[in-house]
């Protein structure tokens, strides 16, 4: 009879995706294009933050957007109205963007004319956390109406991002959102993560966020930005 053999593999399950993500990072490093992966729940303000950031940085950087959406093109229309090129990825039901999808979308942008490309990922706090898109930095948005306990429910997402944008702080008054508890927990889980408190509606905090992002992009131009 045939014997049972054990074969050791010891390979990361998502290594194909991660290899592709490294290829993207290599290509974008050569072209000095900064890629930012924006993740959040539906309605937290991904498109709003991207639009507000575009308005503040448009004069200084050449911008582009990759819009991940399951079916609609509503978000990419908003971006195009800002005078910025947008590529829509319709995932047809998939709950996240992965490196091959981003690679295909990047091929449709004129990268030689761009400095910063945003990826608006699919709206949820679970699946996008698992897949490296080749981005230089990952930012997640948590909006005040979602509650401060999201970090207890989705710790992986909070653990992998370099920046956390707390949006809709104009809703803080009268809410039971515990900003201190969230800050403490975020520090415990991911001490290197930068926190920004903003309102895309009133404009509060957005200059600080944009200054950080501009700094990260400049570091890449200087050749210093490796993916964290």
């Amino acid at each position: 009879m045939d014997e049972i053999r054990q074969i050791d593999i010891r390979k990361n399950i998502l290594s194909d995706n991660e290899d592709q993500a490294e290829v993207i990072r290599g290509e974008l490093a050569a072209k000095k294009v900064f890629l930012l992966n924006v993740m959040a729940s539906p309605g937290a303000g991904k498109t709003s933050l991207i639009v507000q950031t575009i308005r503040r940085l448009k004069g200084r950087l050449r911008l582009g957007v990759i819009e991940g959406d399951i079916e609609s093109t509503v978000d990419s229309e908003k971006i195009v109205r800002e005078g910025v090129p947008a590529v829509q990825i319709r995932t047809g039901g998939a709950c996240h963007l992965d490196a091959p999808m981003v690679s295909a979308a990047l091929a449709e942008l004129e990268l030689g004319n761009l400095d910063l490309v945003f990826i608006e990922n699919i709206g949820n706090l679970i699946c996008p956390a698992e897949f490296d898109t080749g981005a230089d930095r990952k930012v997640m948005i948590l909006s005040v109406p979602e509650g401060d306990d999201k970090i207890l429910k989705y710790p992986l997402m909070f653990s992998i991002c370099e920046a956390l944008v707390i949006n809709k702080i104009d809703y803080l008054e009268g809410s039971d959102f515990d900003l201190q508890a969230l800050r403490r927990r975020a520090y415990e889980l991911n001490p290197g993560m930068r926190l920004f408190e903003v309102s895309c509606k009133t404009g509060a905090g957005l200059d600080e966020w944009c200054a950080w992002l501009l700094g990260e992009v400049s570091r890449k131009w200087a050749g210093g930005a490796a993916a964290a």
Partner: protein
Amino acid sequence: MHELAVTKSILKLVLDHAAQNGGGEVLKITLVIGELRNLEEDWIQRYFDYISKGTPAEHAVIKVRKVPVAFLCKDCGRQFTGDLHREEKLLCPQCGGFSYDLVSGRELIVESVEVR
């Protein structure tokens, strides 16, 4: 929902490695998955049964070894586990410090397969 994408990657890795090592029927697949990963073992097996039909791995049983979330205290070097889904403040059980690094819990690995 992303279990499907993860399961496709598992199947590809398993079939590639089995073929490179003399082929045969895949009986068992051992995965190592950190507790921070939002992956359900039952669903992985269900998706796997579906997508592996007609391949040498179609009857394989998937075993998952879960790795707890662990931290390493920067002050005293003690390694300790913690539940990130609970509200209590995380402190080093040895020195009471709150400066530590996450050292495990994000694993996502195909460890081995049994082939006949």
